[in-house]
């Protein structure tokens, strides 16, 4: 919670945003500190995707957030995650439904979609 408080102070200090309402603070505090997306922050603050990305990147620069990346299977499920794209495994196992059965296949990571996500910088301080 302390980190989210610092996060809120940081974004209101650095960006021309109105002070977050108590409802927005409550929703931000409800985010999973180990993993959240730009869209979670955007939807709570009611800003554009560009502004939300900027906010998250400011938080990264202030060592409040860590940026990570995950690779998605064709069905949208997350297959693996890492601190940067080059640290992802070169291939991941994905399941595909064929005639009602789930068949597993090994796919090259470079051919799959990646998504950036964030987490609070110091998990030990979540509480």
């Amino acid at each position, binding site marked *: 919670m302390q980190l989210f408080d610092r996060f809120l102070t940081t974004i209101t200090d650095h960006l021309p945003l109105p002070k977050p309402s108590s409802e927005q603070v409550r929703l931000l505090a409800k985010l999973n500190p180990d993993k959240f997306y730009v*869209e979670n922050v*955007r939807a709570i603050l009611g800003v554009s*995707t560009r502004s939300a990305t900027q906010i998250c990147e400011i938080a990264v620069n202030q060592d409040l957030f860590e940026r990570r990346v995950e690779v998605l299977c064709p069905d*949208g499920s997350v297959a693996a995650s890492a601190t940067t794209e080059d640290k992802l495994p070169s291939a991941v196992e994905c399941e595909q439904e064929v005639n009602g059965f789930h068949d597993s296949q090994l796919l090259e990571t470079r051919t799959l979609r990646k998504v950036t996500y964030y987490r609070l910088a110091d998990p030990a301080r979540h509480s």
Partner: protein
Amino acid sequence: MALLQGSTQEERRRLLNLFPVANLRLAFGDGSKEEICIREAAGTGVQQLRKIGNFVSNNFCCCKQHIYVFEADTQFKLPNGFLGGVRVSQTSSSAYYLAQTSFTVTIFNQPLSQQFVSILWPLKIEIIGGYYLVRFAILESDVAAVFGMNARVTDRSLVEDDILTRVAQDLLAADLNKGVKHLWRTDFHECPKGKFKKADSLSSEQMDEKKGIKQNYPAIYQEMLLSPIHTSTFIIIDGSVKIDTYSVNPTFGTIGFSKYSQLGDTDAVIRQILDNNN
């Protein structure tokens, strides 16, 4: 015009077949869809080819489509053409292209044989505000059917990803969550089938009998409003737009229209999403 001038009658027939019959009748006169397509494809004069080219450009928004939306600044230039495709017409902010693709149809009879089906594939590239859109007409899915029960499409020379690599390389997919959610909040559309990302899972909700998530499961609706939405189907309830349904993956900037839009309202839906996305 270059691709049309060198095209076969069968290629032109397949091209016209991508459009709704009502629009074909309006442009070319009475008849069944098959009759109009065969009749109009038969002509090879410059006037007739120009007429077909104009029809394709003017009615593109009525086609079934796959649309990819990218982030781009307004200085971004429309390509003159690309490997495998030529420009048919252009305005300051949009251009129509025809690409040539070919399906390999394998016929699993004795002896095994293959046929090649060539198709002229229309697409549109346009710039709307800070967005760069690549819009593909969806090609007919039953290409193999004319070769009988044992025929399957086993290869295709040019697919959407090939063209995207040529015309949208290095562009970032646009995030459309804000626009799509605004339209949901204001009852422009309702979602009967949605996927959304939680912290550690991809959650999905598929309603019975196309009931709406917002109306029937308000808690899930609220959760979706705060989450990245993945491929979901929306039913349009705003009466001003004459399209029943469409699919969208707001997180990856893709939109799909799997039904014809006789009045070309695909443009209106795209505008609504983009206008409310900034």
